[in-house]
């Protein structure tokens, strides 16, 4: 659990309490196809459980926090919460939540966010972004943001550019520009980096794309959902699940899509809590630091 480690000691009890609350509320996040085990008491001691899966997530999606997210402030969402108005979220990227999933990713995201932020109305609008941000799609994104004027943009970014193998510097510049543009209009951003799959594990270019997303999230101080790391973690676990007719990588991919709403929700909730806990002394921007467990 990354959060309390960076908090000033005096704030720790407060944060642990907040975390407990978050864990308790997040427990109800998923409609849970199979009975979810009662929340394990290990959540109470987050600093030492860094390598254990985050128990607030459903078992199949459980990844240690350090490998799942880096946190940063979400001022616009916070303001919406304070004003007690609905939080408008624009989700950009694929909408699939895996083969035969009960609901699409945006629907899952809305449900999960509303469960973990009780008494808050969350409105998720989703848009697919066709094309590469390095060649034109970033413009399209600006139009979408202008059209919907959300409080928060959750952006799955990098896959299309990686598949097109666009120039890394062009990708990096376009991403940085766009994130900065969104922030300049007092809209929050959460970035989600590309998925992990074994056949690309040694692909230097693909890894560079993932690294670029991470660097820009750190530079621009926006929360990042480390989908790549999370999936690699899940891939490394003993594979006891049912097989996939197309092979292990396809099953893993499916799992990644299923878990994404939960993972994104977790990063958003904790980013909000982090703010609450450290409003005066502001815990160091986690995003800029290497995750503690690596």
């Amino acid at each position, binding site marked *: 659990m990354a959060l309390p480690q960076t908090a000033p000691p005096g704030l720790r009890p407060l944060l642990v309490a907040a975390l407990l609350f978050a864990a308790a509320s997040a427990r109800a996040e998923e409609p849970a196809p199979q009975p979810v085990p009662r929340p394990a008491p290990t959540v109470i001691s987050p600093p030492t459980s860094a390598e254990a899966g985050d128990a607030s997530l459903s078992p199949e999606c459980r990844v240690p926090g350090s490998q799942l997210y880096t946190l940063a402030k979400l001022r616009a969402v916070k303001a919406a919460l304070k004003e007690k108005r609905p939080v408008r979220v624009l989700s950009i990227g*694929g*909408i*699939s*939540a*895996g*083969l*035969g*999933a009960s609901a*699409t990713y*945006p629907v899952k995201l809305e449900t999960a966010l509303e469960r973990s932020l009780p008494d808050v109305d969350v409105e998720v*609008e*989703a*848009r*697919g972004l*066709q*094309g*590469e941000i*390095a*060649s*034109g799609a970033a*413009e*399209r994104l*600006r*139009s979408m*943001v*202008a*059209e919907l*004027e959300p409080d928060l943009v959750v952006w799955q970014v990098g*896959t*299309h*550019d*990686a*598949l*097109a*193998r*666009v*120039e890394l510097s*062009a990708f990096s510049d376009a991403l940085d520009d766009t994130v900065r*543009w969104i922030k300049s*209009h007092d809209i929050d951003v959460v970035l989600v980096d*590309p*998925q992990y*799959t*074994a*056949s*690309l594990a040694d692909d230097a*270019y693909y890894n560079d794309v993932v690294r670029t997303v991470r660097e820009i999230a750190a530079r621009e101080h926006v929360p990042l959902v480390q989908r790549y790391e999370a999936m690699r973690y899940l891939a490394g676990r003993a594979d006891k699940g049912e097989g996939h007719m*197309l*092979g292990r*990588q*396809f099953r*893993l*991919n*499916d799992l990644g*899509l299923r878990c994404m709403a939960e993972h994104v929700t977790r990063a958003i909730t904790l980013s909000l809590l982090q703010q609450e806990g450290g409003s005066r002394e502001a815990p160091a921007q986690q995003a800029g630091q290497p995750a503690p467990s690596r």
Partner: protein
Amino acid sequence: MRDPNAIDFWRGLALVTIFINHVPGNTFERYTYSQYGISDAAELFVFLAGWSIGIATRGRDGHPEPRGRTVIRLLSRTIEVYRAQLTVMLLALATIAGTALVLDNPLILEWHNAGTFFADPIQTIVGVALLTHQLGFFNILPLYVVLLGIAPVFVLIARESRTAALVFSGGLYLLSLIEEWNLPSWPGEGDWFFNPLCWQFLLVLGFVLQDWNRESDTLARWSRRLMPAGVALVLFGIALAVLEIRPDPLRVPEPRLLFTFDKTYLTPARLIHFLGVLLAFRAVYGFLAPRIGPVAGYLARLGRNSLAVFSMGSLLSLGGQLLRFWTGGGLLIDLTILCLGLLAMGFTAWFVEWRSRKPRPRV
């Protein structure tokens, strides 16, 4: 087969440009004219489609064909384009799925909106048939289907009054910009990439201008006079594109679509820039054609068979994208993709013409 002419030539050029631009990140992308202006090849393609409708719905003597025949002609073309879209979609999805299997890489399934199809084929196959589910880079034909489908309305109105057709079409365009009307995507949220309610205006403009041009030389005279203005607009467009200057959609006044450079809605800036391009380049074909004979012949042949060439071009550019991904790209790969693509598009055009010349085999 008709001889090479300006319309087919420019359409051929638009087809080649679209093919290159649909392999994003490739070396040659930066040498297409789309990179140097506000509007791009899509505008050219749709405008010329409108211009061609004007030619196709009249006899050689300029007399309009009977209304019923015009309606049937456009309906038949609509069906042809719809059929092409379904075929292309099937082959594109199969190519994506096949590549994902061969490379053992499920990420490829997420290729530009294809993920929805593979995760939820039950709803999505309905969306494919309704044209409300589109893949990235495969969204021009759905636009074209709708435009051809509604074209009879405008063609028949224009028979009575060109002004009425233009006012009706322009009114719909403006209203869609102000009210942000668009056709919905389904499954999934969002709208069409090419908004037919806006793009119809360019088709009607092409049609009406062709009609006007046929009747009097006023248009020709004026476009000659306005050529310097066109050149100025083109230069201005180049400057904006190179310096990456464009309005911030969150800072422009409402209704914001009147002021932004949005492709989906074919915003006025794109339209004006495109008209500038038309004015600036109207005489270029006459100058160029005798000097680049074989190239002009090649491009005109592509333009004459634009539906088949466009369909093949879309699939070839998808193939090019996947090849770039698989091999890691590079100048040699890009050059291979370009050459194979140009050859294959040329062959497609030749093949379509060869087949239409031969009597059909009786099998």
